[in-house]
Protein backbone atom coordinates (compact mmCIF):
# COMPACT_ATOMS: atom_id res chain seq x y z
CA UNK A 1 0.00 0.00 0.00
CA UNK A 2 2.97 2.29 0.68
CA UNK A 3 0.89 4.55 2.91
CA UNK A 4 2.52 7.65 4.36
CA UNK A 5 2.43 8.49 8.05
CA UNK A 6 3.90 11.43 10.02
CA UNK A 7 7.68 11.43 9.97
CA UNK A 8 8.13 12.42 13.62
CA UNK A 9 7.25 8.93 14.81
CA UNK A 10 9.99 6.50 15.73
CA UNK A 11 8.89 2.86 15.81
CA UNK A 12 10.30 0.53 18.45
CA UNK A 13 9.57 -3.10 17.59
CA UNK A 14 8.75 -5.55 20.34
CA UNK A 15 7.77 -9.22 20.20
CA UNK A 16 4.56 -8.39 22.10
CA UNK A 17 3.18 -5.30 23.84
CA UNK A 18 3.25 -7.45 26.99
CA UNK A 19 6.98 -6.69 26.92
CA UNK A 20 6.32 -2.98 27.45
CA UNK A 21 7.20 -2.04 30.98
CA UNK A 22 6.07 0.99 32.93
CA UNK A 23 9.71 1.93 33.25
CA UNK A 24 10.19 1.90 29.45
CA UNK A 25 7.33 4.37 29.12
CA UNK A 26 8.62 6.68 31.85
CA UNK A 27 12.18 6.58 30.53
CA UNK A 28 10.92 7.69 27.11
CA UNK A 29 9.55 10.87 28.68
CA UNK A 30 12.58 11.34 30.89
CA UNK A 31 14.72 11.22 27.75
CA UNK A 32 12.52 13.85 26.12
CA UNK A 33 9.87 12.09 24.03
CA UNK A 34 6.86 14.33 23.45
CA UNK A 35 4.45 11.43 23.34
CA UNK A 36 4.41 7.66 23.30
CA UNK A 37 1.77 5.30 22.05
CA UNK A 38 1.71 1.57 22.35
CA UNK A 39 0.13 -0.34 19.49
CA UNK A 40 -0.91 -3.84 20.44
CA UNK A 41 -2.88 -6.58 18.73
CA UNK A 42 -6.64 -6.51 18.99
CA UNK A 43 -7.94 -7.46 22.41
CA UNK A 44 -8.66 -11.16 22.48
CA UNK A 45 -6.17 -11.79 19.69
CA UNK A 46 -2.92 -11.82 21.68
CA UNK A 47 -0.78 -14.80 20.79
CA UNK A 48 0.33 -14.85 24.43
CA UNK A 49 -3.28 -14.39 25.61
CA UNK A 50 -2.87 -11.34 27.83
CA UNK A 51 0.15 -9.36 26.54
CA UNK A 52 -1.91 -6.49 25.13
CA UNK A 53 -4.17 -6.42 28.21
CA UNK A 54 -1.13 -6.13 30.47
CA UNK A 55 0.22 -3.34 28.25
CA UNK A 56 -3.07 -1.47 28.57
CA UNK A 57 -2.81 -1.55 32.37
CA UNK A 58 0.78 -0.32 32.26
CA UNK A 59 -0.14 2.50 29.92
CA UNK A 60 -2.98 3.47 32.29
CA UNK A 61 -0.51 3.55 35.18
CA UNK A 62 1.95 5.64 33.15
CA UNK A 63 -0.90 8.06 32.34
CA UNK A 64 -1.71 8.37 36.04
CA UNK A 65 1.92 9.06 36.98
CA UNK A 66 2.46 11.57 34.15
CA UNK A 67 -0.71 13.38 35.17
CA UNK A 68 0.40 13.58 38.79
CA UNK A 69 3.88 14.89 38.01
CA UNK A 70 2.49 17.55 35.71
CA UNK A 71 3.47 16.23 32.27
CA UNK A 72 -0.07 15.31 31.27
CA UNK A 73 -1.42 11.77 31.06
CA UNK A 74 -2.61 12.23 27.47
CA UNK A 75 0.96 12.04 26.23
CA UNK A 76 0.85 8.27 26.48
CA UNK A 77 -1.85 6.19 24.81
CA UNK A 78 -2.70 2.59 24.00
CA UNK A 79 -4.17 1.48 20.67
CA UNK A 80 -5.17 -1.91 19.34
CA UNK A 81 -5.22 -2.97 15.74
CA UNK A 82 -4.38 -6.02 13.67
CA UNK A 83 -1.26 -6.18 11.52
CA UNK A 84 -3.35 -6.08 8.34
CA UNK A 85 -4.92 -2.70 9.17
CA UNK A 86 -2.42 -0.36 7.52
CA UNK A 87 -4.92 2.48 6.94
CA UNK A 88 -5.90 2.31 10.62
CA UNK A 89 -2.20 2.45 11.55
CA UNK A 90 -1.83 5.66 9.56
CA UNK A 91 -5.02 7.08 11.09
CA UNK A 92 -3.70 6.39 14.61
CA UNK A 93 -0.30 7.90 13.76
CA UNK A 94 -1.99 11.07 12.51
CA UNK A 95 -4.38 11.21 15.47
CA UNK A 96 -1.54 10.84 17.98
CA UNK A 97 0.63 13.38 16.16
CA UNK A 98 -2.21 15.92 16.23
CA UNK A 99 -2.79 15.24 19.93
CA UNK A 100 0.89 15.76 20.78
CA UNK A 101 1.11 18.89 18.62
CA UNK A 102 -1.80 20.30 20.62
CA UNK A 103 -0.15 19.38 23.92
CA UNK A 104 3.14 20.91 22.86
CA UNK A 105 6.67 19.70 23.53
CA UNK A 106 7.60 17.59 26.54
CA UNK A 107 8.22 20.12 29.36
CA UNK A 108 11.13 17.98 30.59
CA UNK A 109 12.95 18.58 27.33
CA UNK A 110 12.41 22.33 27.67
CA UNK A 111 13.40 22.35 31.35
CA UNK A 112 16.58 20.42 30.60
CA UNK A 113 17.52 22.88 27.86
CA UNK A 114 16.87 25.79 30.22
CA UNK A 115 19.03 24.25 32.95
CA UNK A 116 21.84 23.56 30.50
CA UNK A 117 21.78 27.15 29.21
Amino acid sequence: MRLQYPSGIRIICLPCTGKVDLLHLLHCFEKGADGVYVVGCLEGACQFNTGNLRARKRVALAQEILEKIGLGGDRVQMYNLSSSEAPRFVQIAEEMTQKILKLGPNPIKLARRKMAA
Partner: protein
Amino acid sequence: MIVAKQKPIEEIIETLKGYNKILILGCNECVTVCEAGGKKEVAVLASALRMYFMNQGQEVKIEEATLERQCDHEYLEEIRKTVDQYDAVLSLACGVGVQFLAEKYMHTPILPGVDTCFMGVTEERGVWSERCQGCGQCILAWTAGICPVSRCAKRLLNGPCGGSSKGKCEINKEVPCAWQIIIDRLNELGRMEDYERLIPIKDWSTERAGGPRKVVREDVRS
Protein backbone atom coordinates in the same frame (compact mmCIF):
# COMPACT_ATOMS: atom_id res chain seq x y z
CA MET B 1 5.91 -11.56 54.44
CA ILE B 2 5.35 -7.95 55.41
CA VAL B 3 2.91 -6.38 52.97
CA ALA B 4 3.22 -2.70 52.12
CA LYS B 5 1.72 -0.37 49.55
CA GLN B 6 3.27 2.59 47.82
CA LYS B 7 2.46 5.99 49.18
CA PRO B 8 0.75 8.37 46.75
CA ILE B 9 3.42 10.26 44.81
CA GLU B 10 1.93 13.61 45.92
CA GLU B 11 2.60 12.65 49.55
CA ILE B 12 6.16 11.59 48.73
CA ILE B 13 6.80 14.85 46.87
CA GLU B 14 5.56 16.81 49.89
CA THR B 15 7.98 15.01 52.23
CA LEU B 16 10.91 15.56 49.85
CA LYS B 17 10.47 19.31 49.56
CA GLY B 18 13.64 21.21 50.39
CA TYR B 19 16.05 18.33 49.77
CA ASN B 20 18.38 18.58 46.79
CA LYS B 21 20.15 15.25 46.77
CA ILE B 22 18.03 12.23 47.55
CA LEU B 23 18.73 8.51 47.68
CA ILE B 24 15.79 6.21 46.99
CA LEU B 25 16.57 3.00 48.80
CA GLY B 26 14.69 -0.20 48.02
CA CYS B 27 14.67 -3.53 49.80
CA ASN B 28 15.03 -6.92 48.12
CA GLU B 29 12.80 -8.82 50.53
CA CYS B 30 9.07 -8.54 51.37
CA VAL B 31 8.44 -5.23 49.63
CA THR B 32 9.92 -6.62 46.44
CA VAL B 33 7.49 -9.55 46.53
CA CYS B 34 4.49 -7.29 47.16
CA GLU B 35 5.77 -4.94 44.44
CA ALA B 36 5.89 -1.87 46.65
CA GLY B 37 9.58 -1.18 47.27
CA GLY B 38 11.89 -3.41 45.24
CA LYS B 39 14.44 -2.43 42.60
CA LYS B 40 11.72 -1.96 39.98
CA GLU B 41 9.59 0.32 42.16
CA VAL B 42 12.70 2.31 43.09
CA ALA B 43 13.44 2.86 39.39
CA VAL B 44 9.86 3.90 38.59
CA LEU B 45 9.63 6.31 41.50
CA ALA B 46 13.08 7.76 40.80
CA SER B 47 12.16 8.37 37.18
CA ALA B 48 8.85 10.01 38.12
CA LEU B 49 10.48 12.21 40.76
CA ARG B 50 13.33 13.27 38.46
CA MET B 51 10.74 14.36 35.91
CA TYR B 52 8.61 16.13 38.52
CA PHE B 53 11.47 18.19 39.92
CA MET B 54 12.87 18.97 36.48
CA ASN B 55 9.41 20.14 35.39
CA GLN B 56 9.35 22.40 38.43
CA GLY B 57 12.69 23.85 37.39
CA GLN B 58 14.40 22.45 40.47
CA GLU B 59 17.80 20.80 40.26
CA VAL B 60 17.25 17.80 42.49
CA LYS B 61 19.61 14.86 42.14
CA ILE B 62 17.91 11.53 42.68
CA GLU B 63 19.89 8.33 42.94
CA GLU B 64 18.78 4.73 43.32
CA ALA B 65 19.98 1.74 45.32
CA THR B 66 18.41 -1.44 46.59
CA LEU B 67 19.74 -3.41 49.55
CA GLU B 68 19.31 -7.11 50.18
CA ARG B 69 17.45 -6.21 53.39
CA GLN B 70 17.00 -3.08 55.46
CA CYS B 71 16.37 -4.95 58.70
CA ASP B 72 19.92 -6.26 59.21
CA HIS B 73 23.06 -4.37 60.19
CA GLU B 74 25.31 -5.95 57.57
CA TYR B 75 23.21 -4.81 54.62
CA LEU B 76 22.61 -1.32 56.00
CA GLU B 77 26.37 -0.96 56.41
CA GLU B 78 26.68 -1.05 52.61
CA ILE B 79 25.60 2.60 52.39
CA ARG B 80 27.67 3.87 55.32
CA LYS B 81 30.35 5.39 53.09
CA THR B 82 27.89 7.13 50.78
CA VAL B 83 24.92 8.10 52.96
CA ASP B 84 26.44 11.42 54.04
CA GLN B 85 26.40 12.77 50.48
CA TYR B 86 22.59 12.79 50.48
CA ASP B 87 20.28 15.39 52.00
CA ALA B 88 17.71 12.65 52.64
CA VAL B 89 17.07 8.96 52.10
CA LEU B 90 13.63 7.85 50.94
CA SER B 91 13.32 4.23 52.04
CA LEU B 92 10.88 1.97 50.22
CA ALA B 93 11.32 -0.73 52.87
CA CYS B 94 8.66 -1.48 55.47
CA GLY B 95 8.51 0.58 58.65
CA VAL B 96 11.10 -1.73 60.18
CA GLY B 97 13.68 -0.85 57.55
CA VAL B 98 12.94 2.87 57.74
CA GLN B 99 13.43 2.85 61.51
CA PHE B 100 16.56 0.73 61.46
CA LEU B 101 18.07 3.11 58.93
CA ALA B 102 17.07 6.08 61.06
CA GLU B 103 18.64 4.51 64.15
CA LYS B 104 21.85 3.79 62.29
CA TYR B 105 22.35 7.04 60.41
CA MET B 106 21.68 9.81 62.89
CA HIS B 107 22.56 12.76 60.66
CA THR B 108 20.51 11.95 57.55
CA PRO B 109 16.73 12.37 57.42
CA ILE B 110 15.15 8.99 56.57
CA LEU B 111 11.72 9.22 54.97
CA PRO B 112 9.16 6.47 54.30
CA GLY B 113 8.06 5.79 50.72
CA VAL B 114 5.54 3.06 51.48
CA ASP B 115 2.73 2.45 53.95
CA THR B 116 3.38 -0.79 55.82
CA CYS B 117 0.13 -2.74 56.04
CA PHE B 118 0.31 -6.21 57.56
CA MET B 119 1.87 -9.67 57.58
CA GLY B 120 0.17 -11.60 54.83
CA VAL B 121 0.18 -13.77 51.75
CA THR B 122 0.06 -13.29 48.00
CA GLU B 123 -3.38 -14.66 47.08
CA GLU B 124 -2.62 -13.94 43.45
CA ARG B 125 -0.42 -11.37 41.75
CA GLY B 126 -1.76 -8.00 42.85
CA VAL B 127 -3.83 -9.36 45.74
CA TRP B 128 -2.36 -9.64 49.22
CA SER B 129 -4.26 -10.41 52.39
CA GLU B 130 -3.56 -10.55 56.09
CA ARG B 131 -2.78 -13.80 57.89
CA CYS B 132 -0.89 -12.97 61.08
CA GLN B 133 -0.85 -10.20 63.65
CA GLY B 134 2.18 -11.45 65.55
CA CYS B 135 0.23 -11.82 68.79
CA GLY B 136 3.13 -13.72 70.30
CA GLN B 137 1.10 -16.75 71.39
CA CYS B 138 0.04 -18.93 68.48
CA ILE B 139 -3.20 -20.89 68.79
CA LEU B 140 -3.32 -22.23 65.23
CA ALA B 141 -2.96 -25.81 66.55
CA TRP B 142 -6.54 -25.61 67.87
CA THR B 143 -8.13 -23.60 65.10
CA ALA B 144 -7.41 -25.83 62.10
CA GLY B 145 -4.49 -23.62 61.04
CA ILE B 146 -6.76 -20.60 60.49
CA CYS B 147 -6.08 -17.59 62.72
CA PRO B 148 -9.08 -15.99 64.42
CA VAL B 149 -6.86 -13.21 65.80
CA SER B 150 -5.96 -11.89 62.36
CA ARG B 151 -8.96 -13.00 60.35
CA CYS B 152 -11.91 -12.45 62.68
CA ALA B 153 -12.84 -8.77 62.91
CA LYS B 154 -13.62 -9.23 66.61
CA ARG B 155 -10.69 -11.56 67.25
CA LEU B 156 -13.06 -14.07 68.85
CA LEU B 157 -11.38 -17.20 70.12
CA ASN B 158 -14.32 -19.53 70.72
CA GLY B 159 -16.60 -19.61 67.73
CA PRO B 160 -18.33 -17.00 65.56
CA CYS B 161 -20.42 -14.05 66.67
CA GLY B 162 -24.01 -13.42 65.58
CA GLY B 163 -22.77 -11.35 62.65
CA SER B 164 -21.64 -14.38 60.66
CA SER B 165 -24.03 -14.81 57.75
CA LYS B 166 -23.76 -17.29 54.87
CA GLY B 167 -20.09 -17.73 55.67
CA LYS B 168 -19.34 -14.02 55.49
CA CYS B 169 -18.47 -11.45 58.13
CA GLU B 170 -20.88 -8.66 59.00
CA ILE B 171 -18.24 -5.99 58.42
CA ASN B 172 -18.11 -6.72 54.69
CA LYS B 173 -19.73 -9.33 52.48
CA GLU B 174 -16.38 -9.87 50.76
CA VAL B 175 -14.73 -10.91 54.02
CA PRO B 176 -15.11 -14.57 54.91
CA CYS B 177 -16.07 -15.37 58.49
CA ALA B 178 -12.88 -16.76 60.02
CA TRP B 179 -14.86 -19.10 62.22
CA GLN B 180 -16.79 -20.44 59.25
CA ILE B 181 -13.47 -21.34 57.59
CA ILE B 182 -12.18 -22.84 60.82
CA ILE B 183 -15.27 -25.02 61.27
CA ASP B 184 -15.28 -26.08 57.60
CA ARG B 185 -11.65 -27.11 57.85
CA LEU B 186 -12.07 -28.86 61.21
CA ASN B 187 -14.88 -30.85 59.56
CA GLU B 188 -12.61 -31.74 56.64
CA LEU B 189 -9.90 -32.82 59.08
CA GLY B 190 -12.37 -34.82 61.17
CA ARG B 191 -11.29 -32.82 64.20
CA MET B 192 -14.48 -31.12 65.31
CA GLU B 193 -13.58 -32.02 68.87
CA ASP B 194 -11.05 -29.16 68.67
CA TYR B 195 -14.02 -26.80 68.28
CA GLU B 196 -15.36 -28.01 71.64
CA ARG B 197 -12.06 -27.20 73.30
CA LEU B 198 -12.42 -23.92 75.17
CA ILE B 199 -9.59 -21.52 74.39
CA PRO B 200 -8.84 -19.64 77.62
CA ILE B 201 -8.78 -15.85 77.89
CA LYS B 202 -5.80 -14.72 75.85
CA ASP B 203 -2.87 -12.98 77.48
CA TRP B 204 -2.60 -9.94 75.24
CA SER B 205 0.57 -8.75 76.93
CA THR B 206 2.54 -10.70 74.31
CA GLU B 207 0.78 -8.64 71.66
CA ARG B 208 1.12 -4.86 71.47
CA ALA B 209 -0.64 -4.38 74.81
CA GLY B 210 2.61 -5.21 76.59
CA GLY B 211 4.55 -2.48 74.78
CA PRO B 212 7.35 -2.94 72.24
CA ARG B 213 8.42 -6.57 72.09
CA LYS B 214 11.79 -8.23 71.95
CA VAL B 215 13.02 -11.78 71.42
CA VAL B 216 16.36 -12.69 72.96
CA ARG B 217 17.97 -16.06 72.30
CA GLU B 218 21.06 -16.57 74.38
CA ASP B 219 21.98 -19.79 72.55
CA VAL B 220 22.53 -18.00 69.24
CA ARG B 221 23.51 -14.61 70.57
CA SER B 222 27.06 -13.55 69.79
